[in-house]
């Protein structure tokens, strides 16, 4: 039978991870379902489990001049209620699950799960989220886009833990998130979309677009964005077809039980078109 260790301090968790390999569990809202067995039976974990949800020092929301910092254990509901958190991130969290799940689930868990349909990921990519990762002897930082390497694949060593999310403060004229799915609270997205821009003197200063559930990881292309930043709002709108053509090859959704690829692709393109058409002059 596998063991379960409950860590109450960060040091305790890092020491445990330094000694042997564990399955990390935070809120457990993904892990319990994925390792479910029959009612009344132990959860069917394949290796020893390290429980981190009760490490209070990883439960915080802080800001300084440059960034917002969200502790790995901060519950989704706390994020939803915090005025320090940008509205677009709260808009995504309110569409994740229901209060009962949000009272224990975490963003680090959504990231660690690395599902292409993970809702927060689209917005976190859009906001250039970075992660702080710790082991007993080392602290490193990594961009979320480099941390998630594929479907359920993350660049985390066996002795490491995500300790916080670092979200740079940015000034966008407008940004929003859109989730396409059947029942708001418990639906896994068929597709999700996040976008934002800023305009100064009719010139596009910043332009960001991210798509979820259209590829193995979230799709965001700095290269495509860069081609259109610096154009006037009017030129950008006149170039709508070019923008769509630039994103087309990046959007490679799959067929699954939730939706099919033709639908997903059409909706993704339509959301992109709507975003560009609605960009306003300042």
């Amino acid at each position: 039978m596998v063991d379960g260790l409950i860590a109450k301090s960060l040091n305790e968790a890092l020491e445990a991870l330094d000694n042997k390999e564990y399955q990390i569990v935070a809120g457990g809202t993904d892990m319990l379902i994925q390792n479910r067995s029959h009612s009344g039976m132990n959860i069917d974990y394949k290796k020893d489990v390290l429980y981190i949800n009760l490490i209070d020092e990883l439960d915080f929301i802080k800001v300084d001049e440059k960034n917002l910092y969200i502790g790995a254990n901060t519950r989704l509901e706390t994020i939803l209620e915090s005025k320090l958190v940008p509205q677009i991130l709260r808009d995504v969290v309110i569409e994740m699950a229901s209060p009962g799940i949000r009272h224990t689930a975490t963003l680090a868990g959504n990231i660690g799960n690395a599902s292409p349909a993970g809702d927060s990921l689209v917005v976190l990519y859009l906001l250039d989220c970075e992660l702080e990762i710790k082991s007993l002897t080392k602290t490193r930082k990594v961009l979320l886009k480099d941390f998630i390497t594929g479907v359920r694949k993350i660049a985390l060593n066996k002795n490491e833990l995500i300790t916080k999310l670092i979200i740079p403060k940015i000034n966008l004229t407008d940004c929003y998130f859109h989730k396409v799915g059947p029942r708001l609270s418990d639906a896994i997205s068929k597709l999700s979309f996040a976008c934002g821009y800023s305009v100064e003197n009719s010139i596009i200063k910043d332009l960001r677009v991210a798509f979820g559930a259209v590829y193995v990881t979230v799709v965001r292309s700095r290269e495509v964005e860069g081609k259109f930043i610096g154009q006037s709002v009017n030129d950008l709108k006149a170039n709508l077809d070019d923008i769509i053509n630039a994103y087309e090859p990046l959007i490679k959704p799959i067929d699954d039980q939730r939706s099919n690829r033709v639908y997903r692709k059409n909706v993704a393109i339509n959301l992109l078109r709507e975003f560009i058409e609605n960009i306003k002059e300042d």
Partner: protein
Amino acid sequence: MPKIEFKLNDKLVTVHSTANRRLLDVLREDFNLTGPKEGCGEGECGACAVLLNHKIVNSCCTPLANVDGQEIVTIEGFSKTKRYQIIKDAFAEMGGVQCGFCTPGMVIATESLLNKNPHPNDEEIRIALSGNLCRCTGYNMIIKSIQKAAKDGDGIW
């Protein structure tokens, strides 16, 4: 064997077992608390809802480990309170209960909401119930029940 201690319905309890169990199984099997029910077993229906530190959680997706040193209240414990009486009467009067399977979860969701927000509007009530499924009432009667509970219980939340 690890030892997990927590407050359950106002009493300190100890569970001597692996931490790798669902809170739902521990409540039903070790403590014979059958108010929390297994509907879907995957976080979607709310039939298993309990209060963890006064907030609703789904006990089918809560590891026993995560309640170590915390406070759990099930419908059995909550039913001894004045708040429960008000919610119960409101549900009875407004037709918020039919078969009753979802009711313990609905009552827990109501308490979790009113504890944080004693005067919720319709939208806030709907969000608070978004993790609780009911196959009988069509929800409108439950929403009316909660509005009534908030009104009748004015000042106690």
